[in-house]
């Protein structure tokens, strides 16, 4: 795993770890404000991206790793800290960035404008001057509550190779298989971009469940995969993947096990309710669905996880992620050893390379810097 020390310093190394879920942040909204469209100046935009939501993780560093906090007390806002901790210490070769600043607010216009500003800010910072090593790729964040604005963002950035996917919150977009959302699907397919979902908590706009509000942060973490489950299953039943076979839907931070029983349900319900001629949903899983590993399930018996990963077509559908800089960061070395040997490379880098069109090698930029360091 370490680079050879014999002969000349290698210029490139193979990509062995792709991280499909990393969250850069702005230290304050001031960094993003210059990118806000001139026609939009909400009265109190400073508060737009700040404030701890309900169900915050208990502990001194809240939702962040305690060792990822910088002088701004915002994890993921320092390019130096992020690249050191993620690229060097953790040994990630390429990271897919997903800024979480685009929270829901009541005004759909404000929300769309914020998404636009965040994309422009990312293009100018993390994807350019902070990307001297060329190991970051970006996400075109859109607000699903304003489809015309979403389409404009996709058109604006769709041809830019630094952006490798479109991203939105599964709550707050129309069902992915619905007619209302179909223009976004068409735009994604046109630009050959996966569409990805990432749950975002928004202060003051809490998520009401079918059984009311849960009391504790730990319970809250149990519920948000259901937002993805509803979107994914209704996408499969709607036939959107039959109409757009090239479409790829990425579920980020949703868990990788529940898709198996949910697809068994679809198979069974089609046999009872009528679904003759429908493509096997597990084929959909391999072709059209992607799931990121973090937070990795940790059953007592690892073989149980392995069997579920097999049922889940992990050799195609699962991509490694850390969720840096959040507290429940999954360490690449530790996840790698817990994956079935037959799927290890596919999960750690191959599936992401295919899904995002990534290179198979990356440059070693600084002379004398080793390609690999002792990984935990």
């Amino acid at each position, binding site marked *: 795993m370490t680079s050879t020390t014999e002969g000349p310093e290698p210029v490139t190394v193979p990509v062995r770890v792709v991280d499909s879920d990393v969250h850069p942040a702005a230290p304050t909204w001031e960094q993003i404000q210059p990118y806000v469209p001139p026609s939009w100046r909400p009265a109190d935009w400073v508060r737009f991206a700040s404030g701890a939501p309900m169900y915050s993780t208990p502990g001194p*560093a809240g939702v962040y790793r305690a*060792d990822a906090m910088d002088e701004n007390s915002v994890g993921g806002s320092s390019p130096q800290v992020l690249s050191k901790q993620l690229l060097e210490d953790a040994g990630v070769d390429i990271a897919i960035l997903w800024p979480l600043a685009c929270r829901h607010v009541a005004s759909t216009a404000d929300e769309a404008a914020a998404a636009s500003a965040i994309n422009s800010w990312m293009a100018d910072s993390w994807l350019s001057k902070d990307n001297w090593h060329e190991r970051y790729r970006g996400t075109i964040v859109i607000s699903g509550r304003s489809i015309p604005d979403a389409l404009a963002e996709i058109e604006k950035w769709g041809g830019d190779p630094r952006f490798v996917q479109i991203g939105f919150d599964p709550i707050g977009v129309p069902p992915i298989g619905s007619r209302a959302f179909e223009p976004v699907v068409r735009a994604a397919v046109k630009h050959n971009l996966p569409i990805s979902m990432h749950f975002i908590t928004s202060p003051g706009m809490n998520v009401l469940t079918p059984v009311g509000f849960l009391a504790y942060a730990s319970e809250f973490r149990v519920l948000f995969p259901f937002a993805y489950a509803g979107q994914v299953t209704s996408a499969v039943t709607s036939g959107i993947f039959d109409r757009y076979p090239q479409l790829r839907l990425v579920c980020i931070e949703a868990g990788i096990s529940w898709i198996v029983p949910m697809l068994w349900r679809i198979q069974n319900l089609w046999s009872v309710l009528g679904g003759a001629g429908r493509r096997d949903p597990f084929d959909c899983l391999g072709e059209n669905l992607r799931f990121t590993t973090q937070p990795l399930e940790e059953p007592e018996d690892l073989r149980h996880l392995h069997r579920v990963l097999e049922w889940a077509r992990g050799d195609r559908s699962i991509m490694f992620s850390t969720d840096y800089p959040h*507290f429940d*960061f999954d360490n690449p070395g530790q996840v790698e050893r817990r994956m079935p040997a037959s799927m290890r490379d596919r999960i750690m880098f191959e599936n992401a390379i295919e899904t995002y069109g990534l290179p198979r090698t990356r440059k070693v930029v600084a002379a004398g810097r080793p390609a690999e360091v002792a990984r935990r």
Partner: protein
Amino acid sequence: MTEPEQAAPVRVGCVADLPPGSVRIVPVGRFGVAVYNVNGRFYALNNFCPHMGAELGRGPITGTTVAAEPYQRTYCRDGEIVRCPWHGWEFDIKTGETLAGRVRRVQTFRAWSEDGVVFVASRPNGRARIKDGT
């Protein structure tokens, strides 16, 4: 470390530089050892969380919260607990054991002071080899 591992203790620093409630990470083994001062006595833990390999020494030193019954929380044992900086697992600094669930242990090392200087053993208690994920 040269093979075979040296048994000589490692100098951590002056007692005055490691006051109660503080921690210092010293280069022992692959990832270091975190040396703590808990109420004037010294303890040391392998700087490698058994869960996912985080640097335990960079985690907050706190107490813990217990409850005799649901909804009733009591904070206690301030300064005796280290929380892993990643997933927040609570470890008893003195024993290296997790507080909750099936007991998981981080290796402990003997630490003491002599003539105003703090030392830590270069070998963990009870085992010959430091756990470092390999």
